[in-house]
């Protein structure tokens, strides 16, 4: 090295310690985000076409909210790019001008992930809606963000394969990757974390990344760091997902559904634990408490026993299913009966199974119908199975004590449950009460080694728990990652990471509006 180049290197080293410097981007000292000026809108219009850019109030309002209770925070403009190069162009433009970027799929998130709390450009990816590739021999399918999970399964139905992850909504699969969605059959098939093999992601500086390498989707790999799973669950804060390669499964030969009632919560949870310990590969095991069963009966005009209830589903060949069902429900010394389970009903036919599961599928609406006009908030804690029964029972007590209507449903095979807390319009301070209840449930879960969010994500409202859950070092490590990928903090600001000193935003806290 020459003297001159060493001095240059020293200077660069010094500059690298400043948080905002990165190759190719401007250094920002100001704490303001850029505004979307008329010039920027013109640039977007000429790049994407006028039909793919909108500044209309109605469109922006729609894109400023999701299925959570947070009121809309509209972006300044909404764009619909039709290919990844255009996405890259838009993101690059935002990075140059310090304009926030909010990726948008189906808007079915539960934690306010799409709220444009600092304005900016909302990138609606649904015009990229191709099923790019299906490989039956490899059990993979590659999709663009406009493909929803039901659309993919309809596409795949002749192939004998399916993508089993089923969050309530018909969500965009790439959106599901962004929030690491889970569903009722995670106990058998896992969540998005286990089922995304590769993704095409536009990085905050506009570069296009293939997380496992372009076109690769092997069953296993140890080539470098696991970038795929870094982006799964990153909730739009590290880049824009424009394509995902998913792992598929064979459609089960047979499915049998069953339900049974229990005298109390503890026995229902005990049954769950024992079923799992028996090694029975149960496909779904869902818990509804008596408040929820009552709500379901009223809403659906059903007449199930109003008691803690388990909804079970078995997948497999006829032989293996019979074996599973017997072990669980029918033979002497079986799990259900030993725990005081009664009213064991089961169904094989598609139509019968639908009827049996109707109560579980309508749960959200049935719960809301308990207090018409209410705002509903769903908690999402996930705890070790050994602590599940105690956490549910204690939470139930708190909800009753607060005088709030709060039916509970749970993916108990995962240790995850949702208390659907209803803020009734007629009760003063109802929303405050619900918020405090939600916080106390989260804190209880954290205190027993659980997580504040099993499947919905941190989004806007759960950032306050991140440090309690992960510790200061954990959060600091995450900040290092965020800063490395997105030094200008344009990617979905105000989400996931709690506000720090060098962040631009002013620290939004959870607000029911």
């Amino acid at each position, binding site marked *: 090295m020459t003297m001159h180049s060493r001095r240059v290197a020293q200077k660069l080293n010094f500059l690298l310690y400043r948080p905002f410097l990165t190759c190719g981007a401007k250094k920002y000292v100001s704490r303001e985000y850029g505004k979307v000026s008329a010039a920027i809108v013109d640039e977007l219009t000429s790049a994407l076409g006028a039909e793919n850019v909108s500044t209309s109030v109605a469109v922006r309002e729609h894109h400023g909210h999701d299925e959570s209770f947070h009121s809309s925070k509209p972006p300044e403009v909404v764009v619909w790019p039709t290919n990844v190069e255009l996405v890259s162009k838009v993101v690059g433009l935002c990075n140059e001008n310090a304009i926030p970027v909010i990726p948008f799929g189906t808007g079915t998130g539960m934690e306010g992930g799409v709220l444009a709390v600092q304005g900016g450009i909302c990138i609606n990816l649904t015009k990229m809606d191709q099923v790019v590739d299906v490989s039956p021999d490899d059990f993979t399918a590659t999709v663009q963000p406009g493909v929803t999970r039901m659309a993919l399964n309809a596409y795949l139905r002749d192939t*004998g394969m399916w993508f089993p992850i089923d969050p309530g909504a018909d969500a965009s699969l790439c959106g599901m990757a962004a929030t690491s969605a889970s569903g009722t059959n995670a106990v058998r098939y896992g969540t998005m974390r286990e089922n995304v093999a590769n993704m095409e992601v536009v990085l905050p500086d506009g570069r296009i990344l293939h997380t496992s390498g372009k076109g690769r989707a092997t069953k296993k790999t140890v080539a470098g760091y696991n970038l795929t799973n870094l982006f799964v669950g990153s909730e739009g804060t590290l880049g824009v997902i424009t394509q995902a390669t998913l792992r598929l499964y064979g*459609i089960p030969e047979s499915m049998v559904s069953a339900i049974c009632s229990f005298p109390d919560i503890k026995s229902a949870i005990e049954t769950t634990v024992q079923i799992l310990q028996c090694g029975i590969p149960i496909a779904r095991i869902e818990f509804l408490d008596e408040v929820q069963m009552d709500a379901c009966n009223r809403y659906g005009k059903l007449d199930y026993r109003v008691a803690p209830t388990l909804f079970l589903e078995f997948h497999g060949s006829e032989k293996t299913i019979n074996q599973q069902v017997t072990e669980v429900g029918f033979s002497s010394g079986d799990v259900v009966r030993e725990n005081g389970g009664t009213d064991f009903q089961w169904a094989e036919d*598609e139509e019968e199974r639908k009827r049996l599961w109707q109560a579980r599928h309508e749960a959200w609406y049935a719960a809301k119908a308990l207090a018409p006009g209410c705002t509903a908030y769903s908690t999402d804690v996930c705890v070790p199975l050994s602590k599940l029964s105690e956490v549910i029972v204690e939470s139930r007590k708190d909800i009753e004590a607060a005088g709030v209507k709060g039916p509970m449903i749970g993916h108990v095979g995962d240790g995850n449950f949702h208390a659907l807390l209803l803020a009734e319009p007629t009760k003063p301070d109802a929303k405050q009460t619900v918020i405090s209840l939600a916080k106390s449930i989260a804190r209880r879960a954290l205190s027993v080694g659980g997580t504040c969010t099993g499947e919905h994500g941190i989004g806007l409202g759960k950032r306050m728990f991140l440090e309690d859950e992960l510790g200061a070092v954990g959060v600091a490590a995450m900040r290092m990652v965020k800063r490395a990928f997105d030094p200008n903090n344009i990617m979905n600001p105000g989400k996931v990471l709690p506000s720090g000193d060098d962040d631009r935003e002013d620290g939004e806290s959870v607000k029911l509006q």
Partner: protein
Amino acid sequence: MGVLGPKMAFRVLVGCKRVIDYAVKVRVKPDKTGVVTDGVKHSLNPFDEIAIEEAVRLKEKKIATEIVAVSCGPPKCQEVLRTALAMGADRGIHIEVPDEEYASLQPIHVSKILAKLAAQEEASMIIVGKQAIDDDCNQTAQMTAAFLDWPQATFASKIEKTNGDLLVTREVDGGLETIKVKLPAVLSTDLRLNEPRYATLPNIMKAKKKKIDKKKPADLGVDITQHVEVLKVEEPPVRQAGVIIENAEQLVSKLREAGHIQ
């Protein structure tokens, strides 16, 4: 449950049409001679899927003894036959019609083919979807019954067998109508008849070994000369934006401009 002698065959013929998949956004070709089919996903007509499902259920209830899936068209039709076989049909028959002639193949031709096949195969029942989702004709079941002089029960939403007859509930404009039809008969399926099963991987594998026979319309003595000529295919007119009228005078002048009033 049906009352069958031990040796009595109850063969069900199921019509299967290969159509553009229901989820696809159909586009008209620039030359307006038809819709774009190249590179577009095709699948078994949903109502025919319901027909196969019903036939398979009849076999599971030991009413039907053999299910034969039939499809008319170019080689790609074998895909829908494979789907039918994977769902539980026993064998398939592919009536080969090359691409150019397939474009003008109409329900009247298909009905003649099904009628001839039913006689050859000694079928006790023919079941097809009520209509194909590409042409929406809703003619094949009815014409086939006429050619065979068999009773017909269309828009079936429930099928039961009692002795030598079928009790069929039909969806009609006024509600539901239940009729008794003597076998052999032609049925067409409506949406609410059943929920078709998915083809599972093991069954798809098994289906590869099932037989698909090939025949030509001429082998059955059926003439598929073109009856109908398509003149033009167009997209529906693009919806025009509405105009907000400020007052009554403006409304009157706009109506006058458009020639709706003098």
